[in-house]
């Protein structure tokens, strides 16, 4: 998707237009007004006297609102600059557009203003795959509005378009006959309403507009409150502040309120195409944001619990206790041409659900939620043993049951070639990737804590701890690649070690399943030149058969991945190394105005001087947005221990000061300070401190005392 497209959104309703504010979509072209995964407008073109307009500038007012400044004429020569046009558009239950035409001339003018309108009601999946529609369209003019509709059996969607100024409405759009006096202006409000029949979705008006200015004010206030509620950051490194602010604003835009939990929000996966509930993305982002916005975690847990699997369904890959992968609402989902109602094909979200519940309680002390979700957490733990062990060997593995439209790789590295042997060959299925075993271990340990503390079931806690200890022992034996000195990426169906070196070993540190001596060797790999590019840890190590610095999961650097690796390094006491990873990725954020992309290329830092962005359609991406937040946590060494927040900072060289003020939690609000020696009179220069070269030889410098606050849990 080209970058000059303008995107605004509110929840899962969003508009993608060109810089004039026009929409001219084709089946394969991703512009339009979308809501609940359906395109409700595919044409929205403004002309004056039959002519298209030219963009002067676009003003992004809020994530849900934008303003286009236009003049008539085409090409670079303005035919008539005595007119200017302003389109102010706010999205919400459709959109509201205030169209204003200013006459700068000394003479009155007469104009024919037309808005051409159409809708193809394409499902998002159809836009992606350019598929044909199976239902029928209808359109009519009634009660002063244009109604565009689509029907397939009982499935019915409609778009209603109306205007405040007198208009001639036909089935292809609205025409205004406009007379404007010298130096005067003309204006109209345009209302576009999306309707999903039978779903209780019928709204008479879009959210915004003259009738509902309070909604816009509410949304603005909501954003202000969101920013005010978050901890304040001070740092001598300006880019850290910019990146932090960017993350908070983007996280606000990524919030999504499920209909079943009105007034509460959880992070969707990405803007705009992934503005829906994803188990894995919502959980990882909620974990990253816990010290900053703990409510996101509570809503994620509740929303995922409401949709937890209860039965065996091969098409959706649903099983009792399983946490969903992705929810969609469009036509193809409705007619079961896609399994997203919801689709459960992911194996990590279920153990991670328990991990998030425990981490949430550690931060907030909210035992009410732990009690409320006891049944769901137990069901998730049960699923790990009863359903996820597909090979019967005591390890979580995956093999899709939906052979047509299910996902082959059901771990976070979900592209087809992400899991490979050192020689590049691909293992068969089921595949037991290593990080899944770590998540299962952590889920059992944390589940045990909750069982003892909140559910008052010490027997269950003992049992879980016994299982976890057994898993850890077996894992360190079965996954360890002796001659390489690292954990295998996976076990294949024959129990062979899939021996590629990958970033997944960092997640094993985060989960605590790695034995200390083995962890030390893994850290050398993570910080060594094959995995560490200088910007961050690559998904797959240089020298592996499938390594490609611009391959999606086979060599690129993912900020989200790195943020959990840094957390893992901290957990095992490798403070300086964690700071180094944080520094590499945060320094890369400078090149993206503080907004980290989903991934960037794995080229060595010395080779490209700047991080090369991997082209993706979604930006911001939730777990990239969350990465700087988790890096702040790891740099400051924030760790909740009973009713206190332990602060144990280790800043990267080049950042002299980090202050995070008013961190919310069970302690109320507390401040955290981190300082590093900086040469007097020198401005912070993280980039130059990182140097042009990759990290090179692993450092042994363990500046930590062994009494790391997390040590007691290993």
């Amino acid at each position, binding site marked *: 998707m080209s970058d000059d497209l303008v995107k605004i959104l509110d929840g899962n309703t969003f508009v993608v237009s060109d810089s004039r504010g026009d929409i001219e979509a084709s089946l394969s072209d991703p512009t339009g007004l979308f809501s609940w995964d359906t395109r409700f407008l595919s044409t929205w073109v403004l002309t004056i006297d039959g002519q298209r307009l030219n963009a002067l500038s676009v003003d992004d007012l809020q994530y849900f609102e934008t303003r286009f400044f236009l003049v008539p004429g085409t090409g670079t020569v303005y035919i008539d600059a005595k007119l200017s046009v302003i389109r102010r558009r706010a999205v919400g239950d459709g959109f509201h557009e205030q169209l204003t035409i200013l006459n700068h001339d000394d003479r009155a003018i007469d104009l024919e203003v037309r808005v051409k309108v159409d809708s193809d009601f394409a499902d998002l999946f159809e836009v992606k795959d350019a598929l044909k529609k199976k239902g029928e369209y209808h359109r009519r003019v009634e009660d002063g509005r244009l109604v565009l509709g689509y029907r397939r*059996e*009982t*499935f*019915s969607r409609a778009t209603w378009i109306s205007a405040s100024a007198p208009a001639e409405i036909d089935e292809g759009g609205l025409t205004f006959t406009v007379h404007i006096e010298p130096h005067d202006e003309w204006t109209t409000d345009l209302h576009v309403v999306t309707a*999903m*029949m*039978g*779903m*209780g979705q019928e709204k008479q008006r879009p959210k915004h507009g003259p009738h509902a200015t309070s909604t816009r004010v509410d949304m603005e206030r909501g954003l202000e409150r969101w920013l005010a509620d978050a901890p304040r950051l001070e740092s001598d490194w300006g880019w850290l502040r910019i990146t932090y602010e960017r993350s908070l604003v983007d996280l606000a835009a990524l919030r999504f309120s499920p*209909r*079943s*939990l009105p007034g509460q929000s959880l992070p969707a996966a990405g803007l705009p195409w992934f503005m829906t509930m994803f188990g894995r993305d919502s959980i990882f982002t909620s974990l990253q944001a816990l010290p900053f916005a703990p409510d996101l975690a509570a809503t994620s847990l509740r929303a995922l619990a*409401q*949709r*937890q699997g*209860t*039965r*065996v*369904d*091969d*098409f*959706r890959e*649903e099983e009792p206790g399983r946490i969903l992968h992705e929810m969609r*609402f*469009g036509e193809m*989902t*409705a*007619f*079961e041409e896609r399994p997203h*109602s*919801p689709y459960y094909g992911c194996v990590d979200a279920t153990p991670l659900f328990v991990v998030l519940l425990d981490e949430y309680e550690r931060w907030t002390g909210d035992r009410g939620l732990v009690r*409320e*979700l006891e*049944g769901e957490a137990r069901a998730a733990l*049960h699923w790990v*043993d*009863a*359903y*996820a*062990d*597909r*090979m*019967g060997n005591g390890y979580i593995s995956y093999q899709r049951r939906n052979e047509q439209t299910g996902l082959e790789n059901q771990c976070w590295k979900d592209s087809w070639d992400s899991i490979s042997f050192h020689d590049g060959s691909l293992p068969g299925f089921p595949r037991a990737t290593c990080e899944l075993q770590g998540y299962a271990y952590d889920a059992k340990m944390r589940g045990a804590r909750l069982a003892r503390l909140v559910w008052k079931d010490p027997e269950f806690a003992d049992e879980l701890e016994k299982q976890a200890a057994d898993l850890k022992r077996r894992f360190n034996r079965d996954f360890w690649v002796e001659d390489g000195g690292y954990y295998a990426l996976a076990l294949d169906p024959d129990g062979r070690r899939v021996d590629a070196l990958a970033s997944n070993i960092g997640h094993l540190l985060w989960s605590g399943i790695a034995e200390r001596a083995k962890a030390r060797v893994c850290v050398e790999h993570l910080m060594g030149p094959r995995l560490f590019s200088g910007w961050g840890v690559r998904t797959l190590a240089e020298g592996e058969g499938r390594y490609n610095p611009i391959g999606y999961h086979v060599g690129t650097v993912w900020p989200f991945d790195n943020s959990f690796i840094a957390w893992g390094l901290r957990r095992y006491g490798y403070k300086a190394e964690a700071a180094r990873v944080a520094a590499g990725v945060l320094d890369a954020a400078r090149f993206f105005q503080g907004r980290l992309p989903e991934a960037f290329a794995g080229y060595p830092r010395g080779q490209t001087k700047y991080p090369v962005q991997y082209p993706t359609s979604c930006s911001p991406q939730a777990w990239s947005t969350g990465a700087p937040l988790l890096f702040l946590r790891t740099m400051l060494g924030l760790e909740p221990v009973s009713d206190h927040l332990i602060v144990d900072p280790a800043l990267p060289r080049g950042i002299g000061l980090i202050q995070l003020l008013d961190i919310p939690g069970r302690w109320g609000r507390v401040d955290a300070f981190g300082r590093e020696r900086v040469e007097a009179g020198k401005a912070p220069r993280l980039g130059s401190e990182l140097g042009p070269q990759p990290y090179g030889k692993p450092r042994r410098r363990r500046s930590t005392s062994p009494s790391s606050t997390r040590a007691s849990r290993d």
Partner: protein
Amino acid sequence: MADATQEFFEALSARRHEPLLRSVSGTLRFDLEDGGRVEHWFVGVTQGDVAVSHRRAAADCVLRGSRALFDGMARGDVNAIAAALRGEFTIQGDPAIVLAFQRLFPGPPSDERLTAGYARSRR
């Protein structure tokens, strides 16, 4: 008469407590159309305790659709969420309680099979 809808509600009524509805309190009414008749099923839930009746009282959420469709859901042949997206029944009121309730429907009968580890550690 033994049919899927009747059996479903009778089984639910007999259970009296449904753990999957443990955190739900509210009322739900199903208006099931069958030819010219409309059959009412009224379900009251109090933290998982269920009471089923034919009352035609106001409820937090009312679902309206064909009895044949509900038979399909009760048998596991029809997925309730997909059917809702298709507009096969209408929902008026609080969607949270419907979302919780649909978890009680079985999966497709053909899919209920034991795989390698299923029986291993059922508690």
